[in-house]
């Protein structure tokens, strides 16, 4: 009822023009509030379970008894809320979170000033407040098990699966230093100083005097860890450069091991009151076990997932499931042994990704991406809302001294830690961290829900001051998320910190990245110095030689990275082309009239009649083609690097493409006999399939110039209207057909073979492309010309 209404209301809103939508927006807000009220009541009511439940069972008993004696009317309509209670509440919360997210983005200016996490916490506060006002008991939403087993894994998996491996590995030393040494420093500094402050309380026996050293240290270890959820939420909106992002983010991920060990260590011994040196030593060993064990567990599951994905070519629909289930099991297995679940999840995602992506279909890839983003988005939203709700819930024990000292100490410890560590790290780094970098790293150390959950986990029996701890933790979280979260964006602007480059990864950059890798490895070998390039090269070769063969199906295992990259680009272009091939005129960012014929050295062909060089294609049409390609490619490139849910762009992969490709495959099979290989250039500016390309072909392939008998001289284009006339799709076909046609796997670049009826078998097939291009555009917008029409247009006059 209400929800349907809301949904329709929400659906019609995006179509409205903002300028005139004030009444609609107000309506939406009112509806949301009404919805909230309507939903919190059952949520609240549901959490005062026992009384009503008891009543119901009593009623049932009475009814059962009564049934024997008196017959009552058959109930036409009855309500049994209890039956669906739990799933209903969960769905309600998820719906609430999603609607909130929707709402924020409809209010334009708000989302640019205030980070989403703050708004969500406020919403949580509101909801909690509403529930309390309604007189109900706030549901214990920040249930630690719920948090660690359901809410956290999707976020971490999303982060791990899309982790940019290269910058992560390059900065691994720095990240580990910050994560391990930095967190240790924070924990001991805060814990120790807090204890000192508590002891020197001048008041009469203040409650603070009772706090022992170990609980303080425990508190320190809980509050010192930088939280990945909060960091992700804030950093994704500020778009700083990759180095800083990976430093803070990597630190937040890897400090989990330290936190786990410290937490368990201090919690164990808080009751006893002392920690001996042996325990400390065991703690260090435990740390290594936790960290490395977690990574190992994750890696094992990752390899299993990769291996499984090798065989999924016949059951494509469940491919994403393997990724999710194996990762979740890695997390649970690690948690079972008290290893670091976060590191297991990261390791699993990072290990399985290159192999899984080589094996799965494009649709599965899209599915995985979308599901991960969706789940992590919802999770994050829920976490922040629950933080708000749990804050209202309390119980709180506000102690001015404790809380303010905690907040100040957190900041001070962080700054000192970062500065000190950077001083040491810079001795070993080649690209040093500047003061600006240090500031951002220090300022970006946000605390979040993990700290709260760990605090919540404390046993009230052992820790009398648990409430005070929780209050302090919440205050620190609020402070970091609100104050630091809101001010970091203007500070980044103010300090002119380098922003993330809009990575339009071009083929040149890819070539040169690889080239550079080999060059630096070679120079290191000449110097006789086994640096990290050397080892990276060794690892790559090992990977190529053994691992890829096991884990990647079919012939993709031999595909070198450059070719894989190139294919990926082509595929994206093909999809783009199909999607927008309706002839829509898009503004071209960089219209370019350069085409292949401008590149190839012009070898004046012997005895070549002048007209032969120029195909008949109107300039206007060419321009149109180029503009579309160019603008499409711009968008494509930006997509290639997106691993952040805010940059996720709608993937236009259509169902129709598959059919096109199958048809195309048939054409190709027919054309296998044609030996002449011609290439297609798909990339940047010119439509590779423009007729101008054939000029280039002609220039470089002497035999193409020879005067052919009339039937051959006209490379008529037999276009199969149903086929995707993009040259890129050819490669797509190659990939899909790999298992079936192993002999085809040899990467022939872009092979575009004309349909079998082509009269000119020796003609450069790419001529087809140009016409295909127009074909495609036309056929998507109108039924398309018949094949005959094209036959009449000679390619060469």
């Amino acid at each position, binding site marked *: 009822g209400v929800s349907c209404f809301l949904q329709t209301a929400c659906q019609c809103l995006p179509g409205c023009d903002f300028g005139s939508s004030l009444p609609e927006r107000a309506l939406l807000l009112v509806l949301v509030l009404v919805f909230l009220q309507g939903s919190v009541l059952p949520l609240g009511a549901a959490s005062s379970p026992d009384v009503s439940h008891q009543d119901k069972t009593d009623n049932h008993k009475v009814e059962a008894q009564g049934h024997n004696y008196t017959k009552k009317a058959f109930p036409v309509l009855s309500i049994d809320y209890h039956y669906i209670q739990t799933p209903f509440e969960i769905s309600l919360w998820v719906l609430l979170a999603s609607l909130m997210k929707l709402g924020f983005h409809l209010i334009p200016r708000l989302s640019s000033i205030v980070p989403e996490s703050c708004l969500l916490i406020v919403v949580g506060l509101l909801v909690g407040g509403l529930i309390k006002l309604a007189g109900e008991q706030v549901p214990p939403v920040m249930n630690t098990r719920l948090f660690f087993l359901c809410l956290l894994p999707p976020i971490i998996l999303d982060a791990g699966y899309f982790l940019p491996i290269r910058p992560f590995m390059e900065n691994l030393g720095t990240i580990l230093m910050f994560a391990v040494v930095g967190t240790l420093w924070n924990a001991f500094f805060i814990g120790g100083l807090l204890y000192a402050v508590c002891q020197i309380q001048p008041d009469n026996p203040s409650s603070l005097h009772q706090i022992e050293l170990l609980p303080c240290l425990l508190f320190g270890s809980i509050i010192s860890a930088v939280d990945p959820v909060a960091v992700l939420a804030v950093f994704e909106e500020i778009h700083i450069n990759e180095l800083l992002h990976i430093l803070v983010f990597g630190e937040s991920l890897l400090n989990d091991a330290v936190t786990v060990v410290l937490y368990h260590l201090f919690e164990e011994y808080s009751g006893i009151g002392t920690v001996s040196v042996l325990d400390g030593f065991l703690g260090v060993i435990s740390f290594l076990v936790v960290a490395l064990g977690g990574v190992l567990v994750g890696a094992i599951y990752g390899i299993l997932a990769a291996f499984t994905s090798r065989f999924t070519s016949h059951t494509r629909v469940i491919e994403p499931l393997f990724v999710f289930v194996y990762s979740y099991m890695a997390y649970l297995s690690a948690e079972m042994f008290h290893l670091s679940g976060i590191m297991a999840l990261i390791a699993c995602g990072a290990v399985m990704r290159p192999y899984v992506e080589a094996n799965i279909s494009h649709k599965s890839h899209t599915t995985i991406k979308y599901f991960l983003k969706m789940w992590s988005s919802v999770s994050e939203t829920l976490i922040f809302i629950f933080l708000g709700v749990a804050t209202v819930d309390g119980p709180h024990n506000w102690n001015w001294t404790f809380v303010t000292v905690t907040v100040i100490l957190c900041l001070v410890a962080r700054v000192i830690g970062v500065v000190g560590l950077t001083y040491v790290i810079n001795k070993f780094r080649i690209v040093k961290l500047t003061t600006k970098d240090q500031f951002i790293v220090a300022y970006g150390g946000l605390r979040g829900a993990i700290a709260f959950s760990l605090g919540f986990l404390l046993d009230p029996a052992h820790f009398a001051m648990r409430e005070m701890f929780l209050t302090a933790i919440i205050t620190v979280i609020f402070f970091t998320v609100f104050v630091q979260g809101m001010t970091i964006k203007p500070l980044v602007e103010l300090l002119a910190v380098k922003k993330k480059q809009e990575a339009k990864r071009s083929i040149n950059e890819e070539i040169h990245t690889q080239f550079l890798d080999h060059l630096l490895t070679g120079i290191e070998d000449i110097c006789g110095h086994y640096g990290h390039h050397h080892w990276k090269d060794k690892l790559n070769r090992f990977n190529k030689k053994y691992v890829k063969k096991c884990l990647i199906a079919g012939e993709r295992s031999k595909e070198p990275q450059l070719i894989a990259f190139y294919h990926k680009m082509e595929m994206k272009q093909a999809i783009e082309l199909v999607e927008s091939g309706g002839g829509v005129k898009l503004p071209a960012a960089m219209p370019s*009239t350069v085409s292949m014929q401008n590149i190839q050295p012009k070898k004046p062909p012997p005895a070549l009649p002048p007209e032969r060089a120029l195909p008949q294609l109107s300039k206007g049409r060419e321009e149109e083609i180029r503009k579309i390609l160019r603008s499409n490619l711009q968008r494509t490139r930006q997509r290639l690097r997106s691993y952040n849910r805010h940059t996720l762009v709608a993937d236009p992969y259509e169902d129709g493409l598959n059919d096109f490709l199958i048809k195309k495959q048939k054409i190709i099979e027919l054309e296998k006999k044609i030996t002449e290989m011609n290439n297609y*250039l798909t990339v940047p500016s010119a439509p590779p399939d423009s007729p101008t390309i054939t000029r280039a072909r002609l220039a470089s392939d002497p035999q193409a110039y020879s005067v052919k008998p009339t039937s051959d001289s006209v490379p008529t284009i037999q276009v199969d209207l149903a086929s995707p006339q993009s040259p890129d799709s050819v490669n797509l076909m190659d990939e899909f057909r790999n298992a079936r046609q192993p002999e085809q796997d040899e990467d022939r670049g872009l092979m575009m073979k004309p349909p079998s009826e082509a009269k000119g078998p020796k003609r450069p097939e790419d001529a087809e492309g140009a016409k295909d291009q127009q074909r495609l555009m036309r056929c998507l917008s109108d039924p398309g010309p018949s094949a005959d029409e094209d036959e009449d247009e000679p390619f060469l006059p």
Partner: protein
Amino acid sequence: MGVSVAYSHVVGVWRSFFPTVSLEQIINLHKRFKQLSGNEDTISRENLDSIPALATNPIRKQIIEAFFDKRNQRQDEVGSFHEIGFEQFLMVMSHFRPPTLKTTEEEREVMRREKLRFLFNMHDTDSDGTITLDEYRKVVEELLSKSGAIGLEAAKAIADAAMLEVASTNVPHMEPDEFYEGITFEHFEQILKGLEMESRMHIRFLDVNTTTMHCGK
């Protein structure tokens, strides 16, 4: 090992070729040089060829050639040496120094240009100042050469696409009958702007591990 008398009077000269390097590193490089050259004063292409670790490198020939390329000696000469001495060796190595905290923005620009120039020289094998399509094709072919059974066609396609990209980025408007001769250094710089060469193209000149000096040249 301390700085022996034999070194001290030339180290100053050597450091002029490679300013930011430390004394220890120069001495280590010199030791390595002696090892490679078989205690001679110059090394030839054969000396570098015989390094076993280089055998698996797909662009081995270009790397070795770069050491003997006169253009990398910052003296505006062209051609190549038959043998190089330690100064030339150092000069080539100096292209791989990293920027420091004190490097100013202008110095970074200069460094970037220098490193890009080094790469450009590696591609431009006929020293005519442009990378033609054939030369670029050769580069990509070499890159893919050790990667197994991939046909030349793929390399050609990739090189063509890359060349097209350079042309279209730098000279967006070309008439159909105009001709793009090859990638000039300015265009090369432009297309690789995003890679930030000065932070990427460097190696760590740590003290050479003595064990690597003993096990095989």
